[in-house]
């Protein structure tokens, strides 16, 4: 089966070549361990090495912070955005959920316009702000992930998601 390479050598080896296509993958770890960096590298490598446009949805860091952190690794996110191969969207869990449920929402439109094939959501734990009930939380996250897959399904090519 084809794998979705992250472009991170050691990680791809551990994953037997990369992520499974069309899947949501949870990166979990303590603060400061590099979850966001792995996600940014997954998106950056996807764009620059595999010609797969990417979308970053952030619930926490300002996009400006992403541009600065990426620049520290020599990744010019601003330029990639100008070229229409990357979009860093800042929003909240409640708005993103409403957006995905609506027809022609911002995320759906962005995915369609860019032909996005990789999505990074940072971080899914922010959905905990919406409810204290673990059952409802699971339903919300499930709905959100499926909502994300729907616009990606409209893209011409196979899709990959990392969360």
């Amino acid at each position, binding site marked *: 089966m084809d794998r979705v390479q992250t472009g991170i050598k050691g990680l791809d080896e551990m994953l037997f070549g990369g992520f499974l296509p069309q899947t949501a993958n949870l990166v979990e770890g303590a603060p400061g361990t590099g979850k966001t960096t792995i996600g940014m590298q997954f998106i950056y490598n996807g764009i620059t090495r595999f010609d797969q446009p990417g979308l970053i949805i952030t619930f926490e860091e300002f996009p400006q912070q992403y541009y600065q952190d990426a620049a520290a690794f020599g990744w010019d996110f601003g330029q990639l955005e100008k070229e229409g191969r990357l979009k860093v969207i*800042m929003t909240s869990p409640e*708005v993103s959920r409403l*957006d995905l449920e609506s027809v022609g929402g911002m995320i759906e439109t962005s995915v369609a316009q860019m032909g996005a094939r990789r999505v990074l959501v940072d971080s899914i734990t922010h959905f905990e702000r919406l409810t204290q009930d673990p059952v409802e939380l699971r339903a919300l996250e499930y709905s959100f992930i499926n909502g994300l897959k729907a616009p990606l399904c409209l893209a011409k090519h196979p899709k990959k998601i990392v969360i």
Partner: protein
Amino acid sequence: MVSNGDDFTARLMNDMLDFVKAKVNSFIKWDLVRFFYENPNTADTVENIAKYAGRNAAAVKPELDDLVESGVMEKREVEGTSIYSLAENEDMRELVHQFNVRVEGDRLFRVKAVYHIIRGMR
């Protein structure tokens, strides 16, 4: 008639000051326009935007609505929730870009812009 560089600079200054007088006529709007310039793909509720900007939601809402009215921002209603984002219009984005470039790099413009805002508040 051929205009020289000074004419062009003066015209740009006037255009930008008109932008301030007509659209960014308060310090909260200034903060908001700067925030959305630095984070151009932000889309959120008044409450969350107010948190990002470190302001009170009640103070931010009328300012955001003014920016929508003047075409700098856009507002969408989804299931009773108002979602604000920077206008997609390329001309408006260019104006926002020029405004922020001027604010960052042109002290004289900054002084004049602050003067116009304060005068407008009286």
